[in-house]
């Protein structure tokens, strides 16, 4: 239990169980992205060919906005009873906590995507011309990129005034390359073109930002 992976597992288990009982994050994310989908389909009303062109953008913008809802709640629970302060004085490695929180958010957003994608397909009459396994790969890599930076910046904006506003202000500019890669690769795969460049870019982005977030998380957690 006291090994770094044990601490990660315990924290993750606790977060998942809390989420399973309350379903706060997943419900608000689901309803939010449903609203985005409905509003978008009212404002565009595309044909099958058009929706292939715009679906990549719509899907990822909806998921990005929905993910911010969950990310904002990541640390709120730990603030309430000074859990974070207790964690800081304990000898547990900070990165175990960070990994647990990131994995938890990753699972929430992936579940959201799994539930919302069928709806997207139905509403926009989507049919992929490219290989579907590549779409899954892009979903995993892209979600990780959003979530790893998002969890990090959520921890950072804890120390600021009006933290709910601060998270998207910090997260969106840094995520632009990842978002661009996600949107472009999704569009390319849906319309049957190659997306190799974008997938390589996403992998590199994930590796670099995961490493840097792990290196700097201790500094952010202990910032006083």
């Amino acid at each position, binding site marked *: 239990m006291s090994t770094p992976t044990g601490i990660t597992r315990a924290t993750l288990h606790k977060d998942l169980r809390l989420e399973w009982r309350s379903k706060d994050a997943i419900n608000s994310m689901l309803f939010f992205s449903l609203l985005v989908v409905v509003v978008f389909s009212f404002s565009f009303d595309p044909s099958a060919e058009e929706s292939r062109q715009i679906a990549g953008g719509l899907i990822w913008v909806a998921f990005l906005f929905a993910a911010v809802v969950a990310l904002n709640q990541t640390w709120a629970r730990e603030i309430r009873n000074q859990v974070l302060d207790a964690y800081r004085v304990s000898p547990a490695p900070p990165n175990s906590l960070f990994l647990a929180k990131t994995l938890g958010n990753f699972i929430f957003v992936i579940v959201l995507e799994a539930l919302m994608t069928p709806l997207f397909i139905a509403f926009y009459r989507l049919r992929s011309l490219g290989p579907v396994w590549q779409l899954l790969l892009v979903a995993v890599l892209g979600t990780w990129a959003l979530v790893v930076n998002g969890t990090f910046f959520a921890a950072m904006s804890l120390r600021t005034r*009006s933290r709910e506003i601060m998270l998207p202000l910090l997260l969106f500019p*840094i995520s632009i390359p990842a978002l*661009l890669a996600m949107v472009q690769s999704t569009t390319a795969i849906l319309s049957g073109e190659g997306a190799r*460049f974008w997938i390589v870019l996403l992998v590199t982005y994930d590796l670099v*930002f995961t490493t840097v977030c792990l290196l700097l998380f201790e*500094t952010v957690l202990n910032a006083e």
Partner: protein
Amino acid sequence: MKHAFPILGVVTAILLSFALYEALIGAPTEQTMGDVQRIFYYHVPSAWTAFTLFFINFIASVQYLVRSSSSADRVASYVAGGVGLVVFAAAFFVPLPMGIRPSAVATTGLLIAGLYFLIRSLFSQPATDVLALVSAEVGVVFCTVVLVTGPIWARPVWGIWWTWDMRLTSTLVLWLIYVSYLFLRRFSSSGQTPLLAAVLAVLGALCVPFVYFSIWFFRTQHPQPVMGDGGSIDPRMLNVLLLNWLAFSCFALLVCWSRYRLETLQREVDQAHALESLLDPRGSVR
């Protein structure tokens, strides 16, 4: 040293007015674009100045983070020196892509290591935070000048105000990143601001290559850089450009310097107030 600041002010004023004269009257008129092209003497030097300032912000932020532990400081110094050396050596031993001069690469290498060690010797660790703040603020101003003068030029020449081309988009994203940096500094509570800002600055700077490569995939409409391939620009125009660049750099240095003094004084005043209220027996809060 006491008179350095006013001397720099006078030199900047002379350089700026001479550069203005040269840009508007001295330089030859461009054949196809006409007088609109003269905005180039402000657009390009502003861009160079902004990028230099953002780079200084990155170095200052790295130093703020690493200099609290001596081992991290040593590692970072080796890395900075090593990167500078590798880039410098690459200018001579690695075949460069078309249009990039070895001398430019070698200068970049020297600049990386030189700036790092210059800042390290001139500024104490708390002072690097002031430097990071100042360079980001002034850099955002110059970057705004770039983003405003660009469309003014593009409208008559390209026929459009804006296009999602590589250079325009990456400059805009760079501007967004550093504006979010200033937002963080504004919104964060005072004690932890330097640390969080330094962390964000490092992440933002790491993002720049990704921005560049991701947007590189779109077609590019921007005129190719005039410094790289050589021969495409009239030497008189090049001289005026370099003169303007010098003037703008002096101006940026002047603004940064006065902003730096202001910020340092402000912090001293805040500290004095905090101390005073601690020592005051009635416990009054100023």
